[in-house]
């Protein structure tokens, strides 16, 4: 089926343009009955990429099976993967291109991510704002989150999905773990259908309240992986943002082997409680402790919420340090400027590292001597303490704190 249905609009649009818009493009699409494809272009980069944009637009429309249409492109310096996504969104909105996709050339996938990898910082990237993507990895967060939920307007979900799909496929995020925050179910299942094929490393599920929701997403990911022939893991991080979700923290964390971490969303949680979110955070003390304990009990990481005042670096440091002291392994960042402070806050203190290194050295010595008991000076070191020291030293190395 390639023709538009009776009810589909003949004229659609997608994307953004305007004086304040950067790195995006607006596509106005009109279905015609004959006359072939007619493309007009206005672009601030026309002298350099005008021909290339028109050529790309033709190729994308051809791939989507569009034979007759008038397409007006108003470009604000969008990169090719954005142009392709916006054209596809406009075409789909006209009810065309059923079962077809226009996938840009693929950037090689990074190595699969480990279940317990370093997750100190995750940088939120709004799913409708392509200008933030290309340089996100330069600010070296441990992860980027392409967000389809709160940062995307309800009417833009379809376009954002296509953009996020193309982004996962083409943008080099370096050593960052590539996360996608889907919408609440059932909308989130449609998100999965579009993005899982591009092997995101982790799916964030918002407002989870029941383990069955996790199981459903897990099942859907499994099916889509099989369909796309993907064998690398795609982890799940449920976000608990309601009183009920907090109460079900353990069953949620234990709902699937693929849950790698549990996190908490404090804006929604405090709203659910009907209290104000404060800098000190007494109101969420119980919830955070509960999440931590449930995560540990299920053998997964506990990750803290975001700190929403980007101007308050001291506040961020205090929050991060307290968070680490509680046992969280990381938190969300809503601005690249927060990343470094978060990494500092979640780094183990020098004295801790030093002590751990001594224990590791004693452990290694005991291993080579074939001793069952590890001792440091006159003290015997218990096995859990040794394990903790090994993990801490390994983490400190991964963080670049020690070499």
């Amino acid at each position, binding site marked *: 089926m390639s023709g538009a249905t009776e009810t589909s609009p003949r004229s659609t649009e997608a994307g953004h343009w305007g004086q304040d818009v950067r790195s995006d493009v607006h596509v106005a699409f009109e279905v015609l009955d004959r006359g072939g494809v007619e493309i007009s272009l206005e672009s601030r980069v026309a002298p350099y*990429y005008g021909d*290339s944009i028109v050529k790309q637009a033709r190729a994308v429309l051809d791939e989507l099976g569009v034979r007759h249409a008038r397409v007006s492109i108003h470009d604000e*310096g*969008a990169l090719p993967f954005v142009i392709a996504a916006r054209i596809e969104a406009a075409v789909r909105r006209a009810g065309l291109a059923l079962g077809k996709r226009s996938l840009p050339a693929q950037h090689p996938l990074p190595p699969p991510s480990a279940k317990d990898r370093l997750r100190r910082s995750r940088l939120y990237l709004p799913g409708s704002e392509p200008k933030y993507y290309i340089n996100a990895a330069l*600010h070296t967060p441990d992860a980027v989150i392409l967000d389809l939920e709160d940062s995307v307007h309800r009417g833009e979900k379809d376009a954002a999905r296509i953009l996020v799909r193309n982004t996962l496929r083409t943008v080099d995020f370096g050593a960052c773990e590539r996360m996608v925050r889907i919408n609440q179910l059932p909308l989130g299942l449609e998100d999965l259908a579009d993005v899982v094929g591009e092997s995101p490393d982790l799916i964030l599920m918002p407002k989870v309240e029941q383990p069955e929701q996790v199981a459903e997403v897990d099942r859907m990911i499994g099916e889509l992986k099989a369909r796309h022939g993907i064998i690398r893991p795609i982890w799940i991080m449920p976000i608990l943002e309601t009183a009920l979700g907090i109460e079900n923290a353990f069953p949620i964390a234990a709902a699937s082997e693929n849950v790698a971490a549990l996190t908490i969303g404090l804006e929604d949680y405090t709203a659910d409680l009907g209290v104000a979110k404060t800098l000190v955070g007494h109101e969420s003390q119980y919830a955070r402790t509960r999440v931590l304990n449930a995560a540990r009990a299920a053998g997964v990481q506990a990750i803290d919420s975001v700190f929403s005042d980007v101007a308050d670096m001291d506040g961020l440091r205090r929050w991060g340090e307290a968070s680490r002291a509680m046992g969280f392994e990381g938190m969300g960042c809503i601005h690249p400027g927060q990343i470094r402070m978060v990494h500092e806050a979640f780094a183990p203190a020098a004295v801790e590292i030093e002590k751990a290194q001594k224990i590791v050295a004693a452990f290694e010595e005991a291993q080579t001597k074939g001793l069952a008991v590890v001792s440091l000076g006159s003290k015997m070191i218990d096995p859990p303490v040794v394990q903790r020291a090994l993990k801490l030293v390994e983490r400190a190395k991964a963080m670049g704190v020690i070499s």
Partner: protein
Amino acid sequence: MSERAELAHNAAGRAVPTMVNGRPQIPFLGVGKFQPRGRKATTPIRSNKDYPDSGDKRVADLEAALRKCGLRDGMVISNHHHLRDGDNVALMALEAAAKIGVKDLLWFPSASFPSQKGAIELMEKGVIHHIEGSMNGPLGDYCTQGKMRGMGVLRSHGGRYQAIQDGEVHIDIAVIAAPTADSFGNADGSHGKSACGSLGFAFADSTYADHVIVVTDNLAPFPCVPWQIQGNNVDYVVEVESIGDPAKIVSGTTQITRSPDRLRIAELVAKFLREAGIMKDGFSFQAGAGGIALAFVQYLKQMMKEDGVKARFVRGGSTKFLVELLQEGLTDYILDGQTFDLDGVKSMANDPRHVATSPFTSYNYHGKGNFASLVDAVVLGATEVDVNFNANVVTHSDGRLLHGIGGWQNCLFSGCSILALPSFRDRIPVIVDEVTTLTGPGEMIDVVVTERGTAVNPRRQDLLEAVKGSKLPIRSIQDIKTEVEKICGGKPARPKLGDRPCAIVKWVDGTVLDTVWQVG
């Protein structure tokens, strides 16, 4: 344009006209290759008997002053640009000239600004023949569209001094806007309602013009102290209501960039200075008032504090960020060529360690040395840089005039010239195969810092050696270029330039480095 330009290829391989505005030109010969000879230009002998014993040189208005100076067709009128986009005086002088009825003037500002677009009408009417000085915005478009009768001549601040000193340009009448002056003509920029800080750009004009008019909106009783312009060089003083719009003369507060990508570039530049060992006790640097440069100063300041390092001097364009370095004891002096914000102006007025300088001290080619080469490192911008480190600062990639050269070329003589730029703007790569307009030869540019990595000019093995083993993202410029072209979807198409020269770019020694071609 009346003349048919003969072109020659210069030492940089660029086609440049050999005759410009009726004067023969020397094509660029290579850095340090041109050896001028002869004697410097001079002014007519004057006698103090011809000036009032009272010292009061006031006349009623600019028109009267210009008449007294003997304004005629074809003369050269100069202005300085310390009042930036807030300046009223240049247009006031040119309009007074129009009223007198003269034609074919050469306007010779140290730079022009968009608010002076009224000069276009005066060119249309024939009052101004052409402009020699930086042009951007509407004036830049007028020039690159080939509408100006003469050819534009773009010079660096030092190059302007050179051209005045060796007689390439002879100023008939200099009209100097002065935020404070006395009736003798002593003038100062750091006081008054229209204070702008330094008046350094007017120094050459005041000493080499046949006639000098000082225009002020803040007349002080003699003596005006300090006097950056000496009344002994001044013929007439004109009092006006307002020399400019203070809100546009200096910014109230200078803004550091908030873009994380640009902050990253700024931090990488500061780290480079630290890792390369340039940031050490007694060092010096210069950075402008652009967002990246300001952020660079903040990062460097933090590193200087951490390492207990103090600068001997910093060169302005001063802003509150340099003033803070001075006040916190992190530098002994600010040597200031132009003052960008209110903190800078106040500091220059009140702190003897904040010194006003001029292109003579800092940049002049015919000086017995200048300060530019004493600076350890300078941080500059550019619109394009090529794989051989040649850079363009005057035109957009499509050939339209964008910036003046300013002190940019002169600063390249510092110990380490660093270009700090994003690797692409919108979708347009900044690192290209060949720059649209050559403004700085690659041999003068040592480091290019982008958000994707830092490229060191292979000619600077010493710098490469110094940063070896550091955590800096050192990459080849070709490598960064390849990555950016991949991101942007291939190499950009080359802009289509015309074959008619509409302006030339001079090198610091007065030779012709490149041509700006007519577009559109």
